[in-house]
């Protein structure tokens, strides 16, 4: 065939490499972030077809306006009591994060990850889901456990890998597993939980159960193939699952542009699969609640999956191993236009006369005490690196249901080693 573009006439191609707006030292101005007014987004019927509300993947479902009012069709009209409990859960999560972050800095454990600034995402979702619904979280949804009233001491025991750690010190701190609270074992490998959530949801549907699944991953993690497999399976079998994409703008040092945010929203991925998609103000607890409730209703009525992008901001470093000052402007967290999720819900409760600053301050104090007391309790069971908290032989527990001979041999070898050595481990620590 004829080459209709003689090469000599062609302009050289260029490769586009995304670049975030601000780097260390830059003054931050988020004016370009498009924030539609609260209450503006329409709320389709949960029985509507996904193709009928594609626009919702490109706006922001927002309920709380700048004056602390709850407005528009997505207002879940929660009782003040429920809202106060949500507020309390978020504040507790923040207090917990702060204390555990510090514990890591004090050398009491190896690792910690905060959810600072994105507390609403997990907490409000937990309130909107049934307690029996199954959550497949990433590492930043400890808010689910806290909202479901799970024991702080138990969480801390895991963080400390101590004698009371139900996971026997086997997992990195914060990689909880709490079946009783409908919280699936967290994996270190990103996004593997997505197809697993779909499988769980498919199983529930196949069994004629009524429970649904929900899963979370970061915006950066959406690039993994597992994300795509999950969306494809969920679309094909109309699995009763909620996909949450927590778009907190950063994936360690990489801004969301490296996950595709320059081209479209993450909620738009849903459009690509023909499944329901919502883009939500992730710092608005009522919007997160409403979106989750709506998606759960769709799932429960066999309308299939919903993908919710939670537009939020990671106000802290990625983890205790990270220093965000190396790659982004320190002005970002405070300039973030969607504000602080705790303050926004607090302001709303105050605006409707159901809360006040004094009670809030008192609650903060109370929660700090609660966390401190829990920490004290947990530390009775030991902290990481100070003594041997698990029997050595437990290293082999759970590789298989029953130990095959080779693991028995290796276990014996390990015990013999200890005997033979002057290893400074206290078996009974």
């Amino acid at each position: 065939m004829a080459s209709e573009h003689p090469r000599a006439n062609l302009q050289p191609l260029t490769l586009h490499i995304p670049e975030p707006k601000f780097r260390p030292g830059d003054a931050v101005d988020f004016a370009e972030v498009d924030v539609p007014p609260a209450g503006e987004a329409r709320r389709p019927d949960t029985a509507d077809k996904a193709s009928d509300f594609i626009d919702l993947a490109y706006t922001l479902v927002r309920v709380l306006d700048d004056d602390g009012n709850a407005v528009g069709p997505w207002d879940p009209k929660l009782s003040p009591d429920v809202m106060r409990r949500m507020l309390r859960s978020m504040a507790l999560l923040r207090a917990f994060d702060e204390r555990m972050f510090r514990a890591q800095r004090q050398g009491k454990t190896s690792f910690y990850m905060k959810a600072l600034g994105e507390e609403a995402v997990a907490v409000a979702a937990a309130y909107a889901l049934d307690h029996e619904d199954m959550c497949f979280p990433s590492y930043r949804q400890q808010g689910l456990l806290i909202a479901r009233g799970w024991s702080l001491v138990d969480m801390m025991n895991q963080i400390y890998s101590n004698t009371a750690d139900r996971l026997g010190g086997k997992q990195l701190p914060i990689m909880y597993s709490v079946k009783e609270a409908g919280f699936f074992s967290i994996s270190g490998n990103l996004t593997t939980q997505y197809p697993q959530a779909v499988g769980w949801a498919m199983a529930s549907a196949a069994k004629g159960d009524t429970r649904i699944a929900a899963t979370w991953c970061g915006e950066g993690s959406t690039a993994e193939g597992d994300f795509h497999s999950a969306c494809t399976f969920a679309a094909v079998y109309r699995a009763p699952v909620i996909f949450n994409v927590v778009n907190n703008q950063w994936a360690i040092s990489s801004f969301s542009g490296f996950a595709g945010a320059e081209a479209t929203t993450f909620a738009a991925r849903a459009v690509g699969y023909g499944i329901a998609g919502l883009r939500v103000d992730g710092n608005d607890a009522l919007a997160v609640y409403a979106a989750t409730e709506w998606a759960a209703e769709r799932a429960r009525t066999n309308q299939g999956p919903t993908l919710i992008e939670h537009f939020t901001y990671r106000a802290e470093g990625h983890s205790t191993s990270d220093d965000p000052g190396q790659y982004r402007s320190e002005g970002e967290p405070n300039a973030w236009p969607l504000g602080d999720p705790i303050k926004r819900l607090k302001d709303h409760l105050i605006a409707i006369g159901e809360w006040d600053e004094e009670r809030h301050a008192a609650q903060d104090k109370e929660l700090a005490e609660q966390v401190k007391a829990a920490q004290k309790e947990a530390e009775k069971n030991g902290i990481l690196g100070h003594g041997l908290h698990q029997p050595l032989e437990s290293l082999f527990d759970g590789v298989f249901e029953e130990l095959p001979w080779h693991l028995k041999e290796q276990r014996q070898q390990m015990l013999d080693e200890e005997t033979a050595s002057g290893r400074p481990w206290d078996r009974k620590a």
Partner: protein
Amino acid sequence: MSDMIEAPVSETTDAEPTTRMNMIQAINSAMDIMMERDPDVIVMGEDVGYFGGVFRATAGLQAKHGKTRVFDTPITECGIIGVAVGMGAYGLRPVPEIQFADYIYPALDQLVSEAARLRYRSAGEFTSPITVRSPFGGGIFGGQTHSQSPEGLFTHMSGIKTVIPSTPYDAKGLLIAAIEDNDPTLFFEPKRIYNGPFDGYWDRPSQNWSKHPAGEVPTGYYKIELGKAKIVRAGEALTILAYGTMVHVCAAVVAEAGIDAEIVDLRTLVPLDIETIEASVKKTGRCMIVHEATRTSGFGAELSAIVQERCFYHLEAPIERVTGFDTPYPHSLEWAYFPGPVRIGEALKKIMKDA
């Protein structure tokens, strides 16, 4: 060569009635029976539903057990295993198929980091009682991507079991055991012998299972314990460790060579039946290991290492590995790659040299 492999009746727990089955039919029967016995068993994979699988291993299962329990999937091996892990966590007992073992790599992370690790990392709160079936091995002019033997990889991964049958009888009993097992199991099916035992002489007429004693298979439920090898030929001269297709090739070569070899069909690679292996090598003083997979770091390496560690003072000659070469699986030169009778025969000579 068919009568060189012992009749398997002794292992049958519920042996009547029996019927003739090829390996596909035996595998199909295992799934069928398990779906009847346990409502939590489900079968899924590319083309396994209405059509019944590209090798027909799931034929008839959808019609009998319904679309919710036997269904086609999107073409994403990562998704198939990831979804199976989630179903397992719910409480089902999924039996996913990977259409060819060559296509298992996209699922590796879900297999290794998830299925194999879930019990451990959740201290038993969640488990992965899944059985991944996949046809493997060459000798069918399938070229690079329909012929591979990746079983060795999985034996390096703690938390997963690897099972490979060599007869219809074993296939059914082992598959039932794998499905009932509460840990993730890879069940690799030697596709070259789906229809009949293959003796490695590719230029001779092929056989089928109807004349082989292990082609007589109970129609009902029975299982063969995982982790138990089988001595398919007792002997004194040397020990041959093999599995899958190569069991039959070895048996044929040994018969032609008139050597009194003891042939151990491993059946399960992890956990390995070390007792049987050790006893045999200590008795014979010689050990040959045969697999079709590429040589370097294949499962033969582990076998050689472990035999050497345990039987060092009994060994009268170096342990020989007879394997595929360290090349991709070729198309036209398939039989030059394949560890067939000549390669095995040469190794036999070498290992028996001073005997």
